[in-house]
């Protein structure tokens, strides 16, 4: 009959390996092989450059509103590289780095942000979900996929991405709870980029970390320096291994920063200071990783220049493909509404086509 403090299990950890100056914690350095490290760098740089190009395309009116990735490359690429092609991902809408790792072509974001469903046609052989716009709604799909994996007795996992803002939605809660109850092979990756549009992290929730939200569901949470790809990768690999071997879910909070606008329709000067952005620019995940790779002789100036050159070429190719695309047919929504169009849809399609012809929009 006492008054006592309840011991809370499981635990919440914090992990950082490569600091913002590019100094590595030797004890924690996973000593990844050079090839893997170089691939990580290549994806990070590709994401950065493609992001810049997309902003540029938006400014020129060649795509619509675009939501940049700048600053979040380590969080996305470090996690995405921890799984294999038979594993799955459920993304939100700012995971371009992850998509590149997973094998979406560089033209895909152009289509998506250019207003084409084509940008959501997940490439054959890639086990990802399309972009999910309603905040956190995808977390439940990730859970459902992990559940199906478990029911089918595979040892695959599903990475489920969301933002700091996403942790406030009811869907996130229900997803976390189901993941815990059924001990599902799902890893929740919260990219805490400090903002939900204009709403700062500290007003998103009162808890000290987002990682500790896992305690409410009886599994582990870990907060990592999300701009440190080594820490992100190590944490993700551990969580993925745990999930694969039947250990259930993990929540990984990647502490990072949205260095750019929320979307190109956003004006962040309304809600944050230039000074704050400058502070975070010093912690840019690319700068420190490049330094680390140079010091480890994985990269040198020449190889970096080569990678830049390759990426430039790939981006150009993607833009050319996007702009030359001639598949845009407004009848498509009738084709893809149901597997077999109903009689009423056939009739409406006829009406639609007649109207289009009358308007000269179709032959």
């Amino acid at each position: 009959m006492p008054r006592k403090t309840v011991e809370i299990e499981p635990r919440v950890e914090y992990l950082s390996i490569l600091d913002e100056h590019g100094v590595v914690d030797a004890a924690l350095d996973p000593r990844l092989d050079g090839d893997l490290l170089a691939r990580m760098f290549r994806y990070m740089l590709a994401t950065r450059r493609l992001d810049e190009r997309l902003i540029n395309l938006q400014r020129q009116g060649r795509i619509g509103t675009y939501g940049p990735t700048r600053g979040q490359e380590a969080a996305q690429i470090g996690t995405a590289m921890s799984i294999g092609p038979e594993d799955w991902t459920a993304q939100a809408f700012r995971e371009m780095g992850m998509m590149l790792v997973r094998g979406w072509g560089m033209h895909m974001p152009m289509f998506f942000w250019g207003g084409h469903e084509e940008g959501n046609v997940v490439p054959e052989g890639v086990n990802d979900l399309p972009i999910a716009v309603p905040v956190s709604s995808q977390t439940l799909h990730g859970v459902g996929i992990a559940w199906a994996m478990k029911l089918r007795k595979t040892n695959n996992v599903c990475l489920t991405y969301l933002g700091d803002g996403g942790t406030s939605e009811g869907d996130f809660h229900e997803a976390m709870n189901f993941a815990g109850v059924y001990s599902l092979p799902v890893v929740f990756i919260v990219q805490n980029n400090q903002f939900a549009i204009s709403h700062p992290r500290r007003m998103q929730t009162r808890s000290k970390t987002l990682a500790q939200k896992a305690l409410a569901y009886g599994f582990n949470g870990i907060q990592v320096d999300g701009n440190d790809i080594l820490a992100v990768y190590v944490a993700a690999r551990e969580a993925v291994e745990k999930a694969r071997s039947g250990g259930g879910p993990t929540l990984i909070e990647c502490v990072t920063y949205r260095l750019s606008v929320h979307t190109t329709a956003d004006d962040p000067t309304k809600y944050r200071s230039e000074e704050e952005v400058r502070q975070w620019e010093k912690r840019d995940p690319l700068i420190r990783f490049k330094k680390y790779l140079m010091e480890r002789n994985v990269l040198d100036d020449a190889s970096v220049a080569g990678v830049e050159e390759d990426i430039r070429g790939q981006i150009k190719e993607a833009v050319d493909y996007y702009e030359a695309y001639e598949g845009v047919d407004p009848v498509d929504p009738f084709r893809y509404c149901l597997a077999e169009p109903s009689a009423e849809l056939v009739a409406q399609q006829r009406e639609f086509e007649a109207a289009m012809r009358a308007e000269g929009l179709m032959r």
Partner: protein
Amino acid sequence: MAMLTMVKALNLALSEALREDADVVLLGEDIGQDGGVFRVTEGLLEEFGHDRVIDTPVAEAAIAGAAVGMALYGLRPVAEMQFSGFAYQAFHQVEGHVSRFRNRTRGRYSLPMVIRMPYGAGIRAIEHHSESREAYYAHTPGLKVVIPSTPRTARALLRAAIFDPDPVIFYEPKAVYRAMREEVPDEPEALPIGKARIVREGSDITFVAYGAMVRAAEEAADDLADLDGVSAEVIDLLSIAPMDTATILNSVEKTGRLVVIHEAPRRCGVGAEVSARVAESGIEHLCAPIRRVTAYDVLFPYFARERAHLPSSDRIVGAAREVLAF
């Protein structure tokens, strides 16, 4: 052939599907151990085990959203919402995702899944347990919406829904659950989704109904025949989306008169849609106004007052007489 209630007929369809196809899984609140609050899933946990018949926490969005993920991975989930009145907790998943994956990914993904839920009044239940809001789903492109009216149609439509390549909202008229028995064939049967059923032929007036209201429409047709010598044709829609416009128009062409019956509120209900289709494509055959006999555009009352707010055969007869007298 067995004489089954709708509850048993649904149970039969579920067990057949579970047996035939290892991809079929059921999930929902109290569907396993308890056998469902209406016993629709009784005995299925025992036969098929915890991996096929899954009890969930109280979280409707999770039930629907996880079913989306399961379907994407290749299963055929049949999710239960314990009552249609609690399906709105999952409405964002239904509107935002269940209906959209095929179109969004240009057919790369599709969602062969069913969301079953009991709807409608008449069983003296508390608030939120008596509403009929099929129109929400019918207004949502990308969904099929199916409503059986009898044990046999329930079993055959549920089978069709489970094996349909697209998501189906399966609305079960709980007033019919145990109200009648019907012969159900031994072999599995499926009805095509999107086809209405002419329950009884007639020449003077057309009644369009579905779910529990089919019975009321039939009674009204009996009364009209007996009392007024009027011959009413009764159409059971069975599928709200897609809707079998042809069967409705053919009937109205013959009868020239139409009454639509449903339990749902009137404004923007399925009755409005039926009426609008006829006003669009069959108006030249109409000899009279189209009447809707429905619940009213007020909150559906707690059960002490519910009977007064449900369409009755008397009200259908009344509306029919007005239309016939026009």
